[in-house]
């Protein structure tokens, strides 16, 4: 069969019409690497702010993306506890770096956000409604662990009695171009948390990279609509069943390889997290000596909470103009590693580093299960990499598990 015979046709009469025919949800098409630029253009023409991974200050970070040439093609990252180095690799594709310090959290739950305006007129305060309009976001390059982190933050900000309006608005209009990882850093342990490495759900489009082209899975009607517009610029070729299978196999191979990883002398240790019974394990060990031990290494610097894609703690500051009659309330990220987090009546409830590390770890892996019905950990490994002293969440859990009376004889 000639490749041109596979140019996508709108063949499914049940699929909602998109105006012009495009690939259906659940279908796969080939996107040559040179279609990344027209894809970015289509998203920007739709009025979206496009974000993508780029090299800046020695790391791959998410930034505004206008040029496909700014994507970190040919770069891979070496990660270990307290260690992150970019290396040029001529074999590496567009997305063979893994995860940098940024995540979707930086955009959906920004580090600083105005949540209210207040005016005093004739001595009377009132709240005024003028929250800014923001363009919808499109993010290219998100991984399975990023999508898992997003689903967890959705439960925090959208799943309870109160819905966060800013998060809700940004989430509703969010367009996601996911990427299936082809390699894992030593700090990656998504295979053991069930969050990766494949991007399995929650995307509009998902790319699996092959030499010179991406196999693109259509995950939503919006994804299909974007491809329909892309199709006006470039012809799209459908993937055959065997090509789809080859794409899926690429993720499966990586997942199997992650499970089979062994420690090699002189190389960063591969991580994994045993999550079995983890809630009870941690709550039964709130007075374990390991908390004091880790506190001798932990600097309480807050890095782990800042890079964590799910950490959601925040505080609110008042910002007044010179007259004092116009006030903005600004919500900003907070961290359980600061004394301010648990401050009451001038003192902190968690005055020791041990109590603050315990709060972080037990909340992330145990409290979250009570609060939101899910672990707060995606296995992305950011907290390990960006800890200045290389404290490793998987190692801390393993140490508690190894000496827990709870698990004795198990």
């Amino acid at each position, binding site marked *: 069969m000639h490749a041109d015979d596979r140019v996508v046709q709108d063949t499914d009469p049940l699929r909602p019409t998109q105006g012009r025919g495009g690939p259906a949800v659940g279908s796969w098409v080939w996107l040559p690497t040179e279609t990344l630029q027209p894809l970015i253009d289509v998203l920007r023409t739709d009025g979206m702010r496009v974000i993508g991974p780029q090299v800046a200050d020695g790391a791959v970070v998410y930034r505004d993306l206008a040029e496909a040439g700014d994507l970190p093609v040919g770069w891979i990252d070496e990660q270990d506890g307290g260690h992150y180095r970019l290396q040029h690799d001529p074999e590496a594709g567009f997305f063979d770096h893994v995860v940098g310090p940024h995540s979707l959290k930086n955009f959906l739950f920004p580090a600083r956000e105005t*949540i*209210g305006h*207040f005016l*005093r007129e004739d*001595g*009377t*305060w*009132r*709240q005024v409604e003028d929250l800014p309009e923001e363009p919808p976001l499109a993010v290219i390059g998100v991984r399975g662990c990023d999508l898992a982190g997003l689903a967890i933050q959705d439960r*925090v*900000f959208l799943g*309870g*009695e*109160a*819905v*966060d*309006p800013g998060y809700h608005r940004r989430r509703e209009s969010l367009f996601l171009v996911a990427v299936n990882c082809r390699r894992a850093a030593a700090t990656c342990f998504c295979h053991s948390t069930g969050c990766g490495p494949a991007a399995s759900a929650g995307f509009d489009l998902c790319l699996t990279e092959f030499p010179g082209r991406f196999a693109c899975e259509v995950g939503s009607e919006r994804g299909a609509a974007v491809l329909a517009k892309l199709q006006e610029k470039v012809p799209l070729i459908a993937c055959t069943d065997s090509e789809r299978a080859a794409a899926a196999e690429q993720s499966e191979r990586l997942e199997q390889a992650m499970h089979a990883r062994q420690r090699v002398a002189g190389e960063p240790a591969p991580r994994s997290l045993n999550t079995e019974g983890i*809630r*009870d394990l941690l*709550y*039964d060990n*709130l*007075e374990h000596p390991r908390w004091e031990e880790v506190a001798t290494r932990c600097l309480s610097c807050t890095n782990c909470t800042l890079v964590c894609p799910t950490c*959601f*703690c*925040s*505080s*609110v500051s*008042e910002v*007044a103009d010179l007259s*004092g009659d116009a*006030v903005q*309330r600004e*919500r900003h990220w*907070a961290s*359980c590693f600061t004394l301010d*987090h*648990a*401050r*009451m*009546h*001038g003192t902190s*409830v*968690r*005055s*020791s580093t*041990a*109590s603050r590390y*315990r*709060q972080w770890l*037990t*909340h992330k892996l*145990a*409290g979250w*299960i*009570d*609060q939101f019905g899910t672990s707060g950990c995606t296995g992305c490994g950011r907290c390990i990499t960006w800890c200045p002293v290389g404290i490793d969440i998987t190692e801390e859990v393993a140490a508690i598990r190894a000496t827990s009376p*709870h698990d004795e004889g198990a």
Partner: protein
Amino acid sequence: MSPAECSPSPANSLPAVATVPAGYPWRSHTVRIEGIVEEIPGVQTYDLRFLDQEVAGRYRFLPGQFNMLHLPGIGEAAISISSDPANPQQLAHTVRAVGNVTDALARLHPGDTLMLRGPFGRPWPVAESTGRDLVLVAGGLGLASQRAAIRELARRRAEYASVTVVHGAKEPSGLLYTHEYREWKAAGVVVRTIVDGLPQGTATTENAAGDAAMWDGRVGLVTDLVNELTMLSDRTTLLCCGPDPMMTAVAHAALRHDVPAEQVFVSLERNMACAVRHCGLCQFGPVFVCQDGPVFSFAAIEPYLSIPHL
């Protein structure tokens, strides 16, 4: 009981109520200070009224719930509501000036305005406890969180077997709402007070007579009074508010009377920025004090209260 055996829903014996107002969680409403009463040195009760009559008309709260009081440019603080739930348009908050926001509040005057969000949180199980002996134990300013319940119980006294208020303070000048005890007693509420100690030179029945500042009451810990109460295990519900160690001690005193831990309730206080489970600041073990509490059954929260610096 190990924490792991504890129910994932620590407030399970409390009523299901709206613990968050509907709509935008940061929406606040202007209130005007109608009056300020100095209760004890450094502690004032602020009577607040909504400016918007529509907001006032739909505002309801239950005893034990709290509001977020916001002074624009200064900050926001979680303060329990101390007025009668039957008259939700006249809100009272009793506040000790101990921090940034409460110090600034203490500098305001009648007629000044501030912003208010609420009500938030799980209330005391007052409505669920009809027919029972209710014991309310408050340490210091903890009585502010119980005053709404006491007002409600005094009004509906006939529906309860007995209502006893036990209030302890550091010294006699720390006893709250003393001018109201006569009214509470007249409604059939037993009121008992105790102080930790007396300032030097305080007149007592042993060394003076006829002194207006004379203290003829009990000196000791609030648990002394709780221990002396007759508490029937099958019909007592105890509500306690005060510092964490005091609540733990009172709860254990009740347990020694064979009152089940499921019928002992405590109200916790933690740092809060949002009051709707989003800011994470008020976490205590697996719970959010703002919405899973502030009122918890002792059965659910005891495993965490016993852990230092949690």
